């Protein structure tokens, strides 16, 4: 697939927003009383901003953004439609949660937070499933896609929570640092697992099944045009293998070990900026991870345009 930056930003921004909210709400559950309302309000606000930015990014993916409202119509069958419902619903819930915190509507806030958490998980699943449900995109068609997406989003959100806490409520920072570390390592594990899995994939579709001719040696000699088409632009990244490999190592470094090093440096030396930097580095790593996620997915349609690949 040719990675679309709108979608890369959408998924990484909302992922971080979701992770951040979960980190916040989890803290209110795990350490009731130790999470000041101000922090909750601030974290909710940051989460909403990220979610809205993600939403805005998503519009860039649409040919006809003015009709975006129509996309809620098919929630019964379409994970995309479900995401389109879940994302604003969750954003609204976080907003209301933040407002409730701000206004000090206490038990209500907890209930809203619980509801928002459910929406958050739903949103994670929806977004993950958008990719995982396309069964012939074999690199994506695995539960790992959802798991990775949840863990990566949570890791970056928790990392952000750690950074925010370092500035606002240093007390909370170590807990978040621990959590961010655990989640990042878990994400690394599952992401690595998916890399291993994908490296071993045998494409189910071949040129032979694509055109229905059983012969070991088949080559395309013309895709039917000498320029490009939607199908060559949308589904090919037009990059070299080396470039892909480089991006893989970049994300493996930027999304996992490097932010952890920064996180712990920041935590131990009590430099909030280092933790903020850890988040930023991880975010960049996740951008690369998303890019790679798309680029690695080899769409079977590409068999029909092999000559352009």
């Amino acid at each position, binding site marked *: 697939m040719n990675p679309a930056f709108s979608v890369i930003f959408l998924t990484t921004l909302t992922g971080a927003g979701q992770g951040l909210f979960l980190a916040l709400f989890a803290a209110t559950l795990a350490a009731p009383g130790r999470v000041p309302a101000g922090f909750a309000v601030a974290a909710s606000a940051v989460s909403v901003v990220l979610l809205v930015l993600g939403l805005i990014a998503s519009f860039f993916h649409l040919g006809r953004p003015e009709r975006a409202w129509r996309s809620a119509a098919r929630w019964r069958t379409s994970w995309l439609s479900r995401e389109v419902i879940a994302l604003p619903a969750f954003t609204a819930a976080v907003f209301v949660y933040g407002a409730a915190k701000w206004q000090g509507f206490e038990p209500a806030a907890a209930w809203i937070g619980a509801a928002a958490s459910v929406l958050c998980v739903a949103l994670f699943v929806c977004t993950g499933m958008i990719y995982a449900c396309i069964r012939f995109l074999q690199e994506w068609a695995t539960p790992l896609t959802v798991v990775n997406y949840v863990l990566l989003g949570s890791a970056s959100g928790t990392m952000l929570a750690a950074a925010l806490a370092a500035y606002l409520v240093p007390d909370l920072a170590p807990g978040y640092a621990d959590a961010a570390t655990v989640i990042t390592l878990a994400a690394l594990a599952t992401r690595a697992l998916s890399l291993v899995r994908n490296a071993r994939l045998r494409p189910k579709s071949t040129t032979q099944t694509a055109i229905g001719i059983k012969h070991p040696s088949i*080559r395309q*000699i013309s895709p039917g045009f000498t*320029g490009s088409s939607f199908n060559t632009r949308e589904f090919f990244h037009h990059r070299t293998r080396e470039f892909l490999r480089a991006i893989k190592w970049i994300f493996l470094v930027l999304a996992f070990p490097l932010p952890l090093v920064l996180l712990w440096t920041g935590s131990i030396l009590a430099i909030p900026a280092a933790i903020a930097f850890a988040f930023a580095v991880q975010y960049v790593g996740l951008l690369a991870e998303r890019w790679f996620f798309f680029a690695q997915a080899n769409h079977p349609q590409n068999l029909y345009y092999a000559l352009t690949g």
Partner: protein
Amino acid sequence: MTPVPGAPATEIRKTTCYMCACRCGIRVHLRDGEVRYIDGNPDHPLNRGVICAKGSSGIMKQYSPARLTRPLRRKEGSARGDGEYEPISWDEALSMLEERLRAIRATDPKRFALFTGRDQMQALTGLFARQFGTPNYAAHGGFCSVNMAAGMIYTIGGSFWEFGGPDLERSRLFVMIGTAEDHHSNPLKIEIAKFKRAGGRFVSINPVRTGYSAIADEWVPIRPGTDGALLLALIHEIIATGLYDRDFLVRYSNAGQLVHGDDAGEASGLFAVDASSPEGDAMYPQNKLWWDRLTDRAVPTHAPDADPYLLGEFTLPGGKRVKPAFQLLEERVRPYAPEWAAAITGIPAATIRRLAHEMGITARDQKIELPIAWTDSWGVEHSTVTGNPVSFHAMRGLAAHSNGFHTIRALAILMSLLGTIDRPGGFRHRAPFPRAIPPAAKPPKGPEAVKPDTPLGALALGWPAAPEDLSVDGDGKPLRLDKGFSWEYPLSVHGLMHNVITNAWRGDPYPIDTLLFFMANMAWNSSMNTVEVRRMLNDRDEQGRYRIPFVVVSDTFQSEMAGFADLILPDTTYLERHDVMSMLDRPISEFDGPVDSVRMPVLPPKGECRPFQEVLIELAGRLGLPAFVRPDGARKYRDYPDFIVNYETEPGSGIGFLAGWRGKGGEKFMHGEPNPRQWEMYAANNCVYHHALPPSYCYMRNWNQGYLEWTQRVRMRRHSQPILIQLYSEVLQKFRLAAQGRRPGRTPPEHLKDRIATYFDPLPFYYAPLEAQATDSERFPLAAITQRPMAMYHSWDSQNAWLRQIHAHNHLYVNPATARAQGIADGAWMWVESPWGKVRCMARYSEAVEPGTVWTWNAVGKAAGAWRLDANANESHRGFLLNHLITDELPWRGTRISNSDPVTGQAGWYDVHVRIRPAAAGEPAESWPQFAAVPPLPGTAEALPALQSYVAGTRKGKA
């Protein structure tokens, strides 16, 4: 569902497509005056409703930004090729031409030359030239496929191309040789598909497997230029195994006719005649002899109850030794064994043998008997028509080599041996073919034919039967600028357009004044050695005067050639004009009878465009050319439609351009008085006149008494003598005798004597193409050829927004083994060099090409800025033209000779040998050579759209 809501209803107009020479019937659907879509006319006999990729893209041709819309004059002081023009009025343009042509006509008419490319109105352009009085007229045929026309017409009286073809409806084995697309492309596709579905076996012989060959049951890859060897070996095998149709040959060919041996003086190698039996038409004497097997003596041919020996040697009563023509053929092919051909063609001998057996056995054992009674030319009544269901089709893969004439003669002979000429399941003629061998028209015989202010006595082109028919002066010097019908190319029945610019530039045989090109892109893909030709067009003498003083171009688009004209005449598109597909030129006849058709304008001309037909008729009137004016000098024809209706070949002949609905009320056909409502009647009948003949006139027409007499009655032919297949060609032998000094009358100049003696062999023989003979095969080991892409027509579809997306640039296809041996990667830039030029292009690996061959699609590469394409269009930067590698002249005995067939002058487009190497790492990723971009000509589109969305009947997408 209903069509687009709110859209105005569409209106349908029928006419004839001209996105190529196939001439399919089309329905043009108009919405609000714009073309909604074009589809095939289901009621048209040729295409029966189907259409091709080009025809379906007619909209983009019609609204192309490259349309020329105003007459243009080259700006004073600018060089040809710079593309600097100023618009002028038609009146200025015509006056300018009139003045110039009037002066030429009054002094030396041959200083005006009119050459036309892929047009279909040669009857009119030819008439104009004849009336003007210049012999310097020809159409594209000479560089196209004249070998195909001449090789077959001189042998069987008809040819492939639009003159005849395979009867695939009844065939069982179909062998296609060297064809990629051809003129009859839609009908051929319809037929091949039906044939395959009916279980017929399809064999394709071609160095490359694309298009039609792709669906062949067997692909026989062959080295280019070697088909002659293959065909002669097939003949060898068929004769050796007795698989020929003896009965057919005896009656319908000259196989049994006795040929004098070398001891007969000026009759050596000519047919022995029986002075006592009637000769018939002196041009086509019928009093030849057979050696009767039953009575063991010479008898007149076709004597009742006689059966000639086809093999053996006999002594005539006077003591002269004679042999049947078939015996000579058998002797000729004896050394041409399959093993011999295998070494030349690259086809295993076993395959050649198998194919020969398959042809012979299928022809013999799967005979068709149709219950159709007919009478042959000798009065014998037959109750059935027999067919041997083996058919062939061949085109430029054979024709476009300088040994093509003999190759094609060999093919025609093979088809004849199998007994497949004008028989069910074999080859079938299309009217007006078969014609006499050779047809009666003769070219002007010498300088006396050209006189000031006087029409030529006959058409400029014809069919020489003997040296006396050549267009040469007393010294044997050519009369024509292109040296057609000279001793260099005696049977150049379509002229040699590819020699015109070089000869005019060099002033050899003489300088000319005005060169008018109609519909020919001579500054690009229709010339060999294109870079040089462009230089010649722009070259000046010491005084700074152009060597070719005045160049006029009629074109519809800003082609490469348009930029080299001094005067540009903007023509219409096919949707904007009247046209005729005439029996006088290239009709669209079916196997079952004559068909002609018309084109009717469905849209008004764009801008100031004017049909070239109208321009010619106007000019002819202004110049007072006799056929176009009344006795008082006043213009005779109002316009082209008026001309078509009222013109008669001779006053009162009743023969005109159109054969249908003649006579006062449209009640006559083929001939009859002019009918003022003729156009309407065509319009009301799908633009076609189809005269279906009874089945008894549909077969065996070379010798079908009823049919031949019918052709005479309807004035299609002058006489009704049988047209015997010429296995042995006396015409060729007459030239050879002249070269050997054994014949009274004209003899070739000294330096051409052995050339004539060699190539005018009365029997086919194999020789490597002249270019191959002149090229060091160690240094240039690969043959380079082009072929037609189905979705593009020569150069002229690159202005088409849809078609150019399919082929915006081309690759050189190379067998991977060949490419790897030179270190060339798939898709990489590479150099291709011939002894005559080089190009840089992109490689594409292909397993569907014979390893000794490289090929590309024809005419996809373009000069920058032409066709109103952006200067950085793919066509000019990634595409390339193979023509840069091909030479128009070969070194020859210290001088040069055209890279053409020595018999017919056919251009050897596929005669070029090359070597390949990778482009160096630092070289630009761009094709070479590059040309400075030509600016848009005035009258073409102002600006090019970045996005074009065509929706008919809206303001969108209008160029």
